[in-house]
């Protein structure tokens, strides 16, 4: 198993947000977690990544069978976990290209790519995602539109090539064309060795990516698990229909 | 860490106030401790206000009744023995300059001491025509959870106006203060204000300055406890050869304190305006938020505007900002209004009034509101 979350309880600023969440993900699987606003979706993504703002009060997260709770954020990234952010940060003065090279060299110390080979790699990915090449030489997310930021996140995903991609509301704020490009980017990443966890409010991205499992997430827990049919059900009946 | 601090040079004047003047005013025992210190202190040699000589004018007891409002004010000598009063009077506060705050304490001929619980309004209207030399010494205490509105208006043509007002705003209390100086031909006006804010206290100050010939004004906000919040909005209009040196100081001493200063004004003719914004964030002030901004509209090539901002920050979890700008009348705005049939003069007038209206509109006392409008249009 790639990711195993056991009875996870998490507090944010003294308030319990995750209340005993369980989730198993095998290599090659694509999972979707759907939930209403405020259900704790971002909390889940950030807890897997290890954001120190979120305090785990109980439970465990295992990655390839090992607990990662003691690992810092960068150690988890090196271990093969990737988080795509709903609101990616701006880092003035740091060019996307240089940053990605640095991250790539850190995450893949065994693969020694020259600056030129690396340049080829990111240009190829940028072209696939229809990202203007000039973006590579702009500062990280500075002056990027919402859609451009999301594309930049997917570009980073494909370049860094982790084992587990946790995509937090990657579809929000995208128009139809951009959504298609981003979805293709996710499909491009997916292969039998890696896993994807899509966290979303809406069904539309799932129509493109077609997850193997769909989980309904409410009040800090997964309340229902199934296939794509659940997503359609939620779309027509809303989350309210599930409240007991 | 030490740094070199600039000390304002001082000068003495041969016929300064003495104990004799205090005797005429009464309550000498209470004034006495300040008199000696006053006589030891020189007048500031202010470079930007061009103050290098000074002759005091005769002091007389204040004529007339300047106070009204829904709250009772205490002015009896007995109330001077009040602990809060004594504490506040002895607080380390130099205002625009120590000489003038001491003048207020030692030689005041008017002033008020109000304590507000619940809700209350208080109006002080000083008339310099009747009282050419007005020296005020005032204290406002807004009790826990209370809500106060204070209006101070200084009007007329006098010789000298020196005012010192101290405010203590207790836990959860709210203060709204309208401070209005409009005595255009008065040679010198010196205004010092200290606000001590306790936990979650909330202060909103509107500072309107339409002359004196020379105006020195100082507002100092001490945000001493968690969550204290202060905002000051100033509006000034200067013309002729008027000079004003306005100093606004935010001192953040506690976590999650908030301070905001917005200064807008217009200078014309040969007037000279100095806008000083001081923000001082102490080490203890985690997550403090401070913002100062100033805009001066310069209408004449001979007018001068200086901005002297200063940010001192000793805690790194804060947000501190300052901005200042000066500009001339926006040609596009003028053109737009003129294209609707207004004369250039009218258009200018509208733009200037536009800067004042948001403050004038909320002045809670109708005749004060009218006074300000009249004074402003006569200036334009």
């Amino acid at each position, binding site marked *: 198993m790639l990711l195993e979350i056991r009875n996870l309880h998490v507090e944010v600023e003294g308030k319990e947000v995750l209340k005993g969440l369980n989730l198993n993900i095998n290599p090659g699987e694509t999972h979707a977690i759907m939930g209403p606003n405020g259900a704790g979706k971002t909390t889940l993504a950030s807890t897997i990544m290890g954001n120190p703002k979120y305090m785990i009060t109980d439970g465990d997260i295992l990655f390839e069978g090992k607990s990662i709770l003691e690992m*810092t954020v960068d150690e988890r990234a090196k271990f093969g976990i990737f988080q795509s952010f709903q609101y990616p940060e701006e880092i003035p003065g740091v060019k996307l290209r240089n940053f990605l090279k640095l991250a790539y060299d*850190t995450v893949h110390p065994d693969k020694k790519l020259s600056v030129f080979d690396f340049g080829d790699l990111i240009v190829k990915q940028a072209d696939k995602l229809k990202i203007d090449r000039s973006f590579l030489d702009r500062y990280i997310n500075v002056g990027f539109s919402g859609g451009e930021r999301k594309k930049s996140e997917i570009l980073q995903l494909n370049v860094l090539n982790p084992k587990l991609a946790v995509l937090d509301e990657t579809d929000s704020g995208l128009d139809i064309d951009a959504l298609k490009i981003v979805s293709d980017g996710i499909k491009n990443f997916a292969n039998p060795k890696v896993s994807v966890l899509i966290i979303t409010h809406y069904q539309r991205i799932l129509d493109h990516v077609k997850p193997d499992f769909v989980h309904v997430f409410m009040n800090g827990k997964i309340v229902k698990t199934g296939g794509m049919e659940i997503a359609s059900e939620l779309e027509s009946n809303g989350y309210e229909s599930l409240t007991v | 860490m030490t740094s070199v601090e600039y000390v304002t040079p001082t000068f003495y004047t041969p016929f300064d106030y003495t104990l004799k003047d205090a005797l005429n005013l009464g309550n000498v025992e209470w004034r006495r401790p300040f008199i000696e210190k006053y006589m030891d202190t020189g007048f500031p040699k202010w470079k930007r206000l061009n103050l290098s000589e000074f002759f005091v004018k005769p002091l007389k007891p204040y004529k007339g009744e300047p106070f009204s409002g829904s709250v009772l004010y205490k002015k009896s000598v007995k109330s001077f023995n009040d602990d809060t009063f004594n504490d506040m009077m002895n607080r380390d506060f130099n205002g625009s300059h120590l000489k003038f705050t001491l003048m207020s304490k030692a030689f005041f001929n008017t002033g008020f001491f109000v304590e507000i619980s619940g809700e209350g309004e208080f109006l002080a209207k000083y008339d310099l025509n009747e009282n050419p030399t007005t020296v005020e010494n005032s204290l406002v205490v807004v009790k826990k959870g209370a809500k106060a509105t204070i209006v101070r208006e200084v009007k007329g043509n006098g010789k000298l106006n020196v005012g010192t007002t101290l405010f203590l705003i207790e836990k959860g209390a709210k203060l709204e203060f309208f401070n209005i100086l409009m005595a255009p031909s008065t040679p010198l006006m010196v205004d010092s204000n200290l606000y001590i804010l306790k936990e979650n206290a909330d202060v909103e100050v509107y500072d309107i300055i339409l002359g004196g010939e020379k105006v020195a004004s100082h507002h100092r906000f001490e945000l001493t406890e968690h969550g204290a919040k202060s905002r000051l909005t100033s509006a000034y209009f200067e013309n002729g050869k008027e000079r004003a040196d306005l100093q606004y100081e935010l001192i953040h001493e506690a976590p999650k304190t908030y301070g905001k200063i917005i200064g807008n004004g217009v200078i014309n003719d040969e007037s000279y305006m100095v806008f000083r914004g001081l923000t001082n964030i102490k080490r203890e002030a985690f997550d403090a938020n401070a913002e100062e901004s100033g805009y001066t509209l310069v209408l004449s090539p001979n007018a001068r505007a200086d*901005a002297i901002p200063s*940010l001192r*920050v000793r805690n790194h979890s804060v947000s501190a900002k300052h901005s200042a700008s000066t*500009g001339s009348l926006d040609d596009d705005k003028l053109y737009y209004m003129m294209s609707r049939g207004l004369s250039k003069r009218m258009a200018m007038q509208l733009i200037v009034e536009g800067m004042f209206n948001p403050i004038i509109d909320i002045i809670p006392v109708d005749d004060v509101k009218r006074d300000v409008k009249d004074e402003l249009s006569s200036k334009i």
Partner: protein
Amino acid sequence: MSEKLSFDGKVNYVVKSKPGLDKKLIEEISFNKDEPVWMRELRLKSLDFFLKRSNPVFGVDISKLDVNEIIPYLKPDAEKSGSWEEVPENIKETFEKLGIPDAERKVLAGVGAQYDSEVVYQHIKDQLSRLGVIFLDMESAVKEYPELVKKYFMRAVPPNDHKFAALHGAIWSGGSFVYVPKDVEVPMPLQAYFMMASPGMGQFEHTLIIVDKGAKLHFIEGCSAPKYSVINLHSGMVEIYVDEGASMKYSTVQNWSKNTYNLNTKRALVEKDATMVWVSGSIGSAKTMLYPTSVLKGKGARAEHMNITYAGNDQHMDTGSKIIHVAPYTSSKVDARSISSDGGWAFYRGLLKVLPTAHHVKSTVECSALMVDDASASDTVPIIEVMNNEADIGHEARIGKIKESQIYYLMSRGISEGDAKALIVRGFMEPIVKQLPLEYAIEFNRLVNMKFTSDLG
């Protein structure tokens, strides 16, 4: 020049130093330099001002600076250098970490002469002389081009400007002189480094640059590797004259060792349609006071000031810029950034003055300060004086910290906390650092990385 380069600093005689700077010492300095009368008189007049003037009433605390301590080093034959053994360990360590070659280490530590530079310099000299550019050390210029030097020397900054300008006028030695003739564009940046002929030079150096009409020059002073000297006062002066339509860029990277008081004066007079650009990076010294100044004298003149200041442990950096708009249609832009960390104190002090004669002026002043931790301090005092209504002036200042969410974002891509902080700080400095020549920028970045124990390249 070559004579000086073969000078290896042996003391021929020792004069017992008397307390206090005096006329006799100044005359002796001037005599030994074989200077013309006007220069000797300028030195003496400066001494007079120095003795009369009081210390500046603002800025860093210099009460512990004893100017008389430098007197022994002013003697013409004084041993200005110590030995390599006397150089503090931390400086040696920094050289090690920066990978500076042995020969250069000794120069930077003030214990060796820059012999190698002669070769490099000779090549550049040939190229320059074909263009008619004069580039030589200040002392030689006084003798070889007396009329030109006399016309400009301490005219932009007169000796009575302030106490340390006066001190400089009295005891200056070394420095560079550059004259770029009309319409000549100097193809490569000139570096003051070439003029560091002997150890201990560059403490009271005078740099005089004249860029004639329509000409163009980039001049670089200093180096980012730490510079150590037994003399704990650096009081240099830079005077620049940018004539009509000319363009001048002056870049400085200052990294004096932490025993140094760095009290510097830099001023440019900018004529009609000319451009002056100051790029200043200050990392070193115990205390610095430095405010490069542009006087925009001619219609349409432009100035741009870019400052980056790093105040680390035990440092008080009082830096800023001064711009005086004298003529109409002049414009200026200030981008000042500072970082304070480990208890350092960064103070930005600026003056923007628009005189009544200067209508249609445009100016923006932007100051940003980054506080890395709570032990540090950051102050910003940008003074603006506008005496004309047709001026468009904007100013913004902000002080803040590194956002936790930025660190988290970078760490989520596998970057360590130290590297993340270093990256953010480097990004903050980037717009200014990128103005520096590549090798300086690289060293600057390495220094930041060292502060955050980051291994970034």
